């Protein structure tokens, strides 16, 4: 009706999918090439989920870390408008700094400004090694952040040198740390985690008690996927 035509500010509920990507020296060459390829390849699928599933608008935020950290874009971008910008590798692995910066942005004054309508974010960490800076305090701070607490989290250890225990301290569960020993595996993992997180994260099922039903569901699916993955891997790196 005409009376409500001028209502402004209507917005879809949003879910942010965070990618935290290790772009240190050891990632250079085929590894970073595969990461670029895999993530760029998964964007169209996430677009589909966002438009068909439709309870939430999915936005993407990507942070790369090597010597220093860098956000690909200053704010999370609607997946429909998102263009993957190819990243290069080189430098140290300042994961601790990445955690600090993530903690800052997981706040109402920053990326989570649309608090009322926001779903819990999904956070995806990809690394092939171990942090070269102090990270334990940063993880403790993150754990106190409500957005982080309720987020769906997963980590991918790329190759054998990745510090899986450390990645498990980030996800809070070692079942949420997947290992990719080959490019195909990496592509599969990135695809599976992004798609599953987007589907679960944007469902409008509300928990009656403050339980982690979504996180449990996510963990279950990831674990199942992981056992299939392990069976099919061969060591290429």
């Amino acid at each position, binding site marked *: 009706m005409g009376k409500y035509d001028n209502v402004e500010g*209507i917005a879809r*509920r949003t879910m942010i999918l965070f990618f935290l990507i290790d772009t240190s020296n050891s990632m250079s060459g085929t590894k970073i090439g595969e990461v670029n390829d895999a993530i760029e390849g998964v964007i169209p699928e996430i677009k589909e989920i966002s438009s068909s599933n439709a309870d939430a608008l999915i936005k993407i935020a990507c942070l790369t870390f090597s010597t220093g950290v860098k956000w690909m874009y200053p704010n999370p971008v609607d997946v429909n408008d998102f263009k993957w910008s190819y990243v290069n590798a080189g430098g140290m692995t300042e994961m601790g700094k990445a955690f600090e910066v993530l903690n800052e942005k997981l706040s109402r004054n920053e990326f989570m400004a649309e608090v*009322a309508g926001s779903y819990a974010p999904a956070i995806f960490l990809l690394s092939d090694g171990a942090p070269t800076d102090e990270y334990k305090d940063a993880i403790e701070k993150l754990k106190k952040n409500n957005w982080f607490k309720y987020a769906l989290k997963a980590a991918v250890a790329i190759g054998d040198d990745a510090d899986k225990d450390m990645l498990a301290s980030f996800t809070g569960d070692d079942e949420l740390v997947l290992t990719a020993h080959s490019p195909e595996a990496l592509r599969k993992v990135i695809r599976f985690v992004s798609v599953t997180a987007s589907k679960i994260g944007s469902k*409008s*099922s509300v*928990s*009656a*008690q403050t339980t982690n039903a979504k996180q449990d569901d996510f963990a279950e699916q990831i674990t199942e996927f992981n056992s299939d993955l392990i069976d099919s891997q061969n060591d290429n790196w």
Partner: protein
Amino acid sequence: MIIGNKEISNITSLAISQIGASHLDSGICEDSSAVYQDSNMAIACVADGHGDSRCFRANLGSKFAVEIGIQCVKEFVANQPNLDFNDTKEIDKAFVQLKTYILFKWLERTKNHLLAHPIEDREIGLMDHKDYKEYQKEGIFKSYPIIYGSTFILGCVTNGFYFILQLGDGDAAVDNKKFTMPLPEDPRCFGPYTTSLCNDDAIDSFRHYYAKGNPKAIMVSTDGLGKSFAEEHRFLDLLGVIEKNIVESGVEAAKPELTAFFERLTELGSHDDISLGAIVRVGE
């Protein structure tokens, strides 16, 4: 001073529940809303049944919640002994008792419903395994309220005094020159999570607010409305527009216009069920 013993005048009220875009497939709206008005009081109440799969009778839970809310508050206003407005301890005590009573009645109603309508085969798979075992053994289970889980928000206006009750997410706004939300945010209602009538510590999350005065309007809504707006002031602006439309065209005309708008809004915004209960002063 006895509340509700003086007549209120020029008050009108409406209640709307619109099914959410995400529920069109199932056809079940989990929200409920209702209003009540007589010469001494006006009450608006909304409730949002949870979408969680364990809350498979939530649409009934929210229906019972608004029926009971209105019934209990009617009783409260009609029977309230002299409330000394200077004695905030006494008033708070009275509200704690009211909230206790509402919870008690809702728990009783849902329990009786479950006893009269046993769990059906198609519902078993949605239950917690431990709960089902207990149900099989005892015919009831301790956490039975969860299947009816719902939020609850109620606003009431009497002559010179008004109050709000809220448990869970959703919004309650009062227009005293402009719309504001007097109840502070509940930190336990965070992101997609909410407290509920079915929690085992529900009384602790049940909040109330009261004040002297004759506001121009009180509006209570489920989170499907508020979450269709990224910024709070846009949401409050909308309430202002709704109030204006009700004052100008009257409830009879305003209701279908608003319903049609909510149908579009859920599609463009939250995708969730949307409910609004409004009490508006028309003319003076």
